[in-house]
């Protein structure tokens, strides 16, 4: 049963990682919320509304990080046909879409009091909206075909095409005049954020990432079960269980 060998190894690895990632997620999110809402100062210009940043910015980072992972996973699926890659891509897309939606909603809630508008069509905001639609398109394509392998292939192509949007989002604030301000944290320079504000920001970012790891492991497990179900149903329908026609591509 070479087909199941890989998922079995993955399931063991996942079961070993899951308690750790979940623990890190719970602890970082609890500490992050404490610092974000109680033990951090108000901003000199934005007052208490700066606390929205501790949700908005980590959500934006997750939206980009998950999309980059999605594109990399899709490339692995298309080039090496790794049996788990399609399942991982399918498992992560809705989580990425949820973080992108959170980023857009909190950005709107922050923009209204600070900028004076819920939404503008500047390069940054528009490219993030495009990212959200890319996620939705990926989810839709994955479910659009009767044959799940065809759906996965179409979705993988979309994910790879959409990856050009990632640098556009990242550098939009530097390339064009936008209403959105440029990045505060760059690798080369000291961050333009006070340490007391950086702490909740990073804690929330670690918490979101660890949360994503746990959720992803859980969702890949679900996808593995779903694939087994399809195989078993196919074999049941075919009456005589022939191992060679398991309906799955290796």
């Amino acid at each position, binding site marked *: 049963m070479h087909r*199941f060998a890989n998922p079995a190894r993955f399931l063991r690895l996942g079961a070993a990682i899951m308690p750790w990632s979940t623990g890190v997620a719970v602890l970082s999110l609890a500490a992050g919320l404490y610092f974000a809402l109680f033990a951090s100062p108000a901003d000199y210009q934005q007052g*208490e*509304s700066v606390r929205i940043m501790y949700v908005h910015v980590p959500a934006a980072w997750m939206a980009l990080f998950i999309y980059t992972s999605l594109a990399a996973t899709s490339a692995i699926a298309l080039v090496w046909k790794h049996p788990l890659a399609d399942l991982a891509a399918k498992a992560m897309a809705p989580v990425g879409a*949820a973080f992108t939606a959170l980023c857009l909603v909190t950005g709107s*809630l922050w923009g209204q009091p600070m900028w004076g508008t819920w939404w503008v069509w500047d390069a940054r905001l528009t490219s993030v909206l495009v990212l959200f639609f890319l996620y939705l398109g990926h989810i839709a394509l994955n479910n659009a075909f009767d044959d799940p392998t065809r759906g996965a292939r179409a979705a993988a192509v979309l994910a790879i095409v959409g990856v050009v949007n990632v640098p556009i989002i990242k550098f939009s604030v530097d390339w064009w005049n936008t209403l959105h301000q440029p990045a505060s944290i760059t690798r080369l320079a000291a961050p333009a954020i006070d340490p007391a504000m950086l702490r909740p920001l990073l804690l929330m970012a670690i918490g979101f990432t660890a*949360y994503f790891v746990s959720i992803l492991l*859980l*969702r890949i497990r679900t996808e593995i079960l779903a694939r087994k179900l399809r195989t*078993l149903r196919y074999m049941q329908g075919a009456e005589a269980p022939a191992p060679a026609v398991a309906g799955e591509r290796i």
Partner: protein
Amino acid sequence: MRNLAEYFAMGGYAVYVWPSYAAAVAVLIGVLIASLRSLRARSAELEAIEGSLPHRSREERPT
């Protein structure tokens, strides 16, 4: 210790700050519940279908 009402007012930005955090909590918990539900549903279906295929012993167990 700051006045509690003053704290919840968030310097006048309460209507923007609290919905942001509510949205974050809703997304994190919503995705978690949806993922757990579909895992349970698939496990249950798999168990049901395996009950009808007694000759297949499975080498790894989910959950």
